[in-house]
């Protein structure tokens, strides 16, 4: 068993080595870094699905919240925009919360009947307009100041590591809200709720320019303590280092930066694996397996199934949010348009299933392998297709085939999923 796992990981490692040799080490390391982040996301989903059987269709939402946190925490503040309407905006949001709270209190305190219905409706309708009035004024004021470069409130200018933690916390908070309402109901409600909240999150991020510039994107997000290539290329120690190993300083600097990311992300991944393995091989893990085996019996044996489901659902989302924040920090920009359910929900699911759900190592393997496939087919697909269509005459068909070769990755994924499920239905590294 251990030998088989080792071979599987060695095989995936070989893929990255071959990519490095045949294409370039830059590409290989870039894919590997994304693979490590994907592996972390897969770990989070595996907690929800593999340990507890909770089916989330909103993984993308957690990733996006993590990305948003990077903007809100680690980007520089925009004092002019803040002065234009920051406090007013916060007040209007507070007003919105107060309106909802008032409606809830009215619903709880008043006796059933017309008066209650009327009061609740009045609070909500008037409250909504009052909220929108202040909110629109404030957000407009913020968005009109320096819209080309800012137009948003900006962040707190804090270190990226804090942003990662906040990203995890924001994803956890969203999961708490969803879990509180949808857990304990039939499982399809959870699937629907997560899908809906993820799309709403994304819609807010795309449309609320005061928050994170919407689809205008936020660029130049700071790196998490990782040096910049241009600085390395000027640093005497790096130049002499590059000289010593006989490498071109520019290439060396790009590779060096990616290696630093790899160490950083790899450390987080290993830490998370350590934490989850410890938890799984403990009475906590035994309890979770019991709940997954038979909820009714676990309840009858005194376990608070709903609370445990909420716990693991929140933890899983937090891990995904953390990876989402790390991804945005590495890319250095927040691009809401890039968050698609295909890339950040479906693909992560494929990683968990192909790797073997219920198994942490499986998720990591699946994350690395599928990320590699996804990105390599995108890069190598057109090249391969142009060889494959070598014998065709130049013209419409050939160029069409070559141009759409990037889409091959969907086909490839489908084939991989089918093959793995056919020959190893429980994934490449099945749960014992």
């Amino acid at each position, binding site marked *: 068993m251990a030998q088989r796992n080792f071979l599987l990981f060695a095989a995936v490692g070989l893929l990255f080595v071959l990519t490095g040799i045949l294409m370039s080490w830059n590409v290989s390391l870039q894919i590997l870094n994304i693979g490590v982040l994907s592996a972390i996301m897969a770990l989070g989903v595996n907690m929800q699905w593999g340990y507890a059987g909770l089916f989330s269709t909103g993984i993308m939402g957690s990733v996006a919240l993590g990305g948003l946190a990077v903007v809100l925490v680690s980007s520089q503040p925009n004092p002019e925009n803040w002065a234009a309407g920051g406090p007013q905006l916060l007040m209007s949001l507070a007003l919105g919360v107060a309106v909802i709270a008032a409606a809830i209190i009215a619903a709880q305190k008043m006796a059933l009947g017309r008066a209650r219905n009327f009061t609740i409706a009045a609070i909500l309708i008037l409250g909504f307009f009052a909220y929108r009035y202040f909110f629109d004024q404030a957000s407009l004021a913020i968005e009109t100041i320096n819209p080309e470069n800012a137009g948003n409130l900006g962040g707190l200018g804090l270190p990226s590591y804090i942003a990662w933690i906040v990203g995890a916390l924001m994803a956890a908070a969203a999961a708490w809200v969803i879990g509180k309402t949808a857990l304990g109901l039939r499982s399809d409600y959870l699937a629907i709720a997560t899908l809906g909240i993820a799309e709403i999150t994304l819609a807010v991020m795309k449309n609320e320019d005061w928050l994170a510039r919407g689809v205008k994107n936020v660029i130049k997000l700071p790196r998490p303590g990782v040096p910049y290539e241009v600085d390395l290329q000027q640093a005497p120690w790096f130049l002499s280092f590059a000289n010593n190993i006989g490498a071109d300083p520019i290439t060396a600097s790009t590779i060096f930066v990616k290696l630093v990311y790899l160490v950083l992300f790899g450390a987080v991944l290993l830490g998370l694996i350590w934490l989850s393995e*410890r*938890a799984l091989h*403990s*009475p*906590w*893990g035994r309890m979770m397996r019991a709940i997954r085996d*038979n909820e*009714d*019996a676990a309840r009858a044996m005194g376990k608070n199934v709903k609370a445990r489901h909420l716990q693991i659902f929140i933890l899983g989302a937090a891990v995904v949010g953390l990876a989402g924040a790390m991804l945005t920090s590495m890319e250095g920009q927040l691009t809401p348009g890039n968050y698609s359910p295909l890339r950040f929900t479906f693909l992560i699911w494929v990683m968990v299933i192909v790797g073997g759900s219920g198994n942490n190592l499986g998720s990591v393997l699946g994350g690395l392998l599928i990320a590699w496939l996804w990105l390599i087919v995108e890069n190598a697909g057109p090249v391969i297709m142009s060889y494959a269509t070598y014998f065709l005459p130049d013209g419409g068909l050939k160029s069409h085939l070559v141009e759409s070769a990037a889409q091959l990755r969907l086909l490839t994924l489908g084939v991989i999923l089918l093959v793995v499920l056919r020959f190893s239905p429980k994934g490449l590294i099945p749960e014992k």
Partner: protein
Amino acid sequence: MIVVEDLHRHFGGFRAVDGASLEIKTGSITGLIGPNGAGKTTLFNVIAGRLPPTSGRVFMDGEDITGLPPHELFAKGLLRTFQIAHEFSSMTVRENLMMVPAAQKGENLWNTWFSRAAIAAEEASIRAKADEVLEFLTITHLADEKAGNISGGQKKLLELGRTMMVDAKIVFLDEVGAGVNRTLLNTIGDAIIRLNKERGYTFCVIEHDMDFIGRLCDPVICMAEGKVLAQGTLAQVKNDDRVIEAYLGTGLKNKVKSG
């Protein structure tokens, strides 16, 4: 121990439990008999918090426990087993037992990461307890077997064993003898009597095997069509006209008379 007052549980228009009132006395092994579909399992499900009642009340030692969730009832010492065995099939028999004790230190995530020593100590004592239970039930040889792979009767025994991992006050056993061979049934019967005598467990036992009921239970309550028909010793209940009539309807008269 348990008082049930005018309990109803309807499914749509169907009255599975239709105004049942009964009492289970502390220290007793109360039998609950009745033809299939009488509403016995549904009654258990309502008492044990798995289903909410349509109306009616359940009291435990004078406290209203109607509609409390199962894990809170467990904490109060009210445990149950299932008509169809509910083992944790992917776990070993020993793990099935070890998961039971409440509020284990190792169920706290923080402790699983940072208090390994405390957990190890607690695990050792829980494991010893589990091994004791296995020995009590004479299934020590099954300890490392996956619970999904043992026989139906052994699963029933395992479910009884789970209730022994804590200090229960009352245990509801649903058809503990269904599909269990004679020898194993005797083992189960012995275990129930010992638990009742030595550890003061109160039992409420649903069972169709009248020999088994006769050996263990006093009093016996008979249900049919969601109502309690009769209560008393097995002999009294068996001679109750309404009980005979209820069983006649399902062709079990001979079984009752001869048993």
